[in-house]
């Protein structure tokens, strides 16, 4: 009779230890010896695209995902190369990143901070993503940025406009290419003064969350510096759909300008309501009543339809720009998908290229090496002219576009016209500017 060497207890013990080992997050086991989280193997590298695939910003998320897929295609040598051909840095050669084929996983932020953190965590811990990028909201960006800092991966922010992302909530592992509320105010105020005069009384309706506050503060301080007076500023709930109660009293408030610090569905509905209540045709204080929408998005402008005509705002990028980088990107994206890219698509495409370029220049996927390569890096050819990734706060500084709803659009995409390309010097600020105070960048965390 043979005797087995395996005891029931022994098997259970071994199984438990093996199970615990497998259950450990990837960044705490195999690659720990590499000195940083999720060090890639020799053949492929995995990026994590965390975008809203469901929820109110799903269309924007879908456009971001298209741009990411295009960027991956270009990095791996497919397609026409897009902006790789116009990028001032020439280290990317279409062989992936440091010779590794670029693969990606996706997560759904649902435009909810907790869901976004959960999907980012899953991509880092289960899929081994070495970089997380994406998002269409500042709340999500701030939450995911903090998670990436803890996990020791780089976060390349998508569409996030609040000052706080690179202000009081900045992190050493986080980088933002998109512009911010301060830049909107600095670019927009002179155009408003030139078109509407300096003797104006503004009434603000502000979305009651982080982005709304920083945008109201930025627009108020910029316009008040030009001589405007703020007669009232009312917070509106993020869940509000009918703004008639807020808009009805505006015309009789002594104001002659309504500033809608709203984005997304809020912007579509508040602007539609304002136009319904006749604010575009009204006179106040002997002047035409005007409406301003500080942050425009083409996808949102489509929702507001003809109501955007003649209304000023700002945007990070627009497909009608005629620089070589923008033309190359529009050509690539338009040929692949049949319509021009949005500003969300542009910033996410650019962020992916910038990450790949930084890794290649650093010669390492180590987040601290990548961060060092991105800090104070100057580049051109990616659609916004000469751009600086400032080391002090990881914010990109570049020209800002002031746009206006087009009076006579020629097609469904032709909704905004560029009124002014505000030079970067006009929107640059000190890292210790009051609107960005509080919080500290801290030090880079490589994880592991």
């Amino acid at each position, binding site marked *: 009779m043979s005797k087995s060497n395996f005891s029931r207890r022994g098997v259970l013990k071994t199984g438990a230890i093996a199970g615990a080992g497998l259950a450990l997050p990837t960044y705490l086991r195999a690659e720990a010896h590499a000195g940083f989280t999720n060090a890639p193997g020799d053949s492929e590298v995995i990026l994590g695209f965390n975008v809203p695939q*469901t*929820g*109110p*910003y*799903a*269309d924007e998320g879908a456009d971001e995902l298209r741009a990411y897929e295009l960027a991956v295609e270009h990095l791996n040598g497919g397609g026409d190369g897009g902006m790789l051909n116009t990028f001032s840095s020439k280290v990317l050669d279409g062989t992936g990143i440091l010779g590794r084929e670029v693969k990606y996983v996706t997560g759904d932020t649902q435009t909810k901070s907790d869901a976004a953190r959960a999907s980012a965590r899953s991509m880092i811990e289960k899929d081994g993503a070495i970089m997380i990028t994406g998002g269409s909201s500042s709340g999500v960006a701030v939450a995911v940025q903090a998670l990436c800092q803890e996990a020791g991966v780089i976060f390349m922010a998508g569409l996030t406009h609040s000052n706080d992302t690179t202000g009081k909530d900045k992190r050493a592992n986080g980088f933002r290419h998109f512009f911010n509320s301060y830049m909107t105010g600095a670019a927009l105020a002179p155009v408003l003064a030139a078109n509407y005069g300096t003797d104006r009384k503004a009434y603000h309706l502000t979305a009651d969350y982080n982005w709304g506050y920083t945008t109201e503060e930025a627009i108020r301080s910029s316009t008040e510096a030009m001589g405007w007076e703020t007669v*009232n500023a*009312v*917070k509106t*709930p993020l*869940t509000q*759909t*009918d703004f*008639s*109660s*807020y808009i*009805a*009293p505006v*015309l*009789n408030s002594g104001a002659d300008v309504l500033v809608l610090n709203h984005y997304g*569905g809020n912007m*579509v*509905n508040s602007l*539609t*309501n304002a136009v*319904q*209540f*006749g604010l575009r*045709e*009204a006179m*106040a204080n002997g002047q035409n009543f005007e409406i301003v929408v500080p942050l425009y998005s083409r*996808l*949102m402008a*489509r*929702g*507001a*339809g*003809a*109501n955007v005509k003649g209304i000023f705002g700002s945007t990070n990028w627009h*497909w*009608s720009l005629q620089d070589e980088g923008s033309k190359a990107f*529009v*050509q690539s994206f*338009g*040929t692949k998908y049949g*319509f*021009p890219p949005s500003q969300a698509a542009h910033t996410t495409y650019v962020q992916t290229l910038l990450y790949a370029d930084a890794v290649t220049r650093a010669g390492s996927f180590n987040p601290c090496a990548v961060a060092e390569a991105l800090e104070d890096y100057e580049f051109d050819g990616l659609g916004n002219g000469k751009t600086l990734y400032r080391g002090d706060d990881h914010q990109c500084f570049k020209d800002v576009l002031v746009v206006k709803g087009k009076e006579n659009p*020629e*097609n469904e*995409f*032709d909704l905004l016209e560029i009124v002014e390309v505000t030079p970067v010097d006009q929107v640059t600020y000190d890292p210790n500017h009051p609107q960005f105070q509080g919080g500290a960048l801290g030090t880079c965390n490589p994880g592991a």
Partner: protein
Amino acid sequence: MDQFILQILNGLDKGSAYALIALGLTLIFGTLGVVNFAHGALFMLGAFCAVTVSKLLTLSHKVVDDTRTDFLGNPMQVDVPYLHDWFGPAMGDKLIDWAVPLSILFAIPVMICIGFIMERGLIKHFYKRPHADQILVTFGLAIVIQEVIKYYYGANPIPTPAPSAFKGSFDFGVLIGFDVNAIIYPYWRLVYFFFSLVVIGAVFAFLQFTTFGMVVRAGMADRETVGLLGIDIDKRFTIMFGIAAAVAGLAGVMYVPINPPNYHMGMDFLVLSFVVVVVGGMGSLPGAVAAGFLLGILESFASTSWAVSNLPGINQVIIYLVAIIILLTRPRGLMGRKGVMEE
């Protein structure tokens, strides 16, 4: 005083939507005893009937315009609506302009059919189940409907404007002796208010003055006895479900020029409409309508900057606050039958 009148007017159009949705909810609860959490989705489906008609009327074929280029520099392909070919540009544009009112003709049969399918296909299996089961299944159904709409129409709002004759606003204040700009009110919101009055009036007249309505009212009061008289009350209640769906759908159709519709709009109204039903009195049709307008006006007052600055957050809680007070002091609601919700 002018602000007072202005907020009453604002409350009326919001109240119109609440009243129409709550009316449908009450019809379903009163007849079938079902708590229908998919009713907001029916409102949203009505709105998308208008979007669909608008898209159908603007169905186009491409004509290449060599004088212009598209965003890629290729010759521009211009969309020419088939209606232009069939009726000429002037008549074609007029039909497209009137897409929302025309949608009513499309929405009524479509919504009645959807109501029938919902009731026969799913909800009838839950008549004898607890209200919690009904809420779960209808809420699930609402989410499925939402996702289907999002799949086909996208997540962003779709602008569907009112006919140009009703665009813009008028100075109501001047008409009643106030200063210029004191009370500005959009034409379409006035249309919406009167439209809701007509629909509410039609439903009441149908129930009050037709034999069918009489049987339904009798069934609502005592279903068993009506059944014993040999009347197929279930069939009539199924028809009432279809009518309730059509009422919610019509509320949605006419609402699209006020706010561009998206797949989520039903949920925004659903919970508030339930509160309206509870405040009005479960099963009471006049109560649902009265509470709809009342809470719409209250919400409007609570959203003024004066109210919000003195009582922060009051605009978010006012309706629920009223509901709590009503439920504590008069559990049957404003016009509810004695005994309902009081056991």
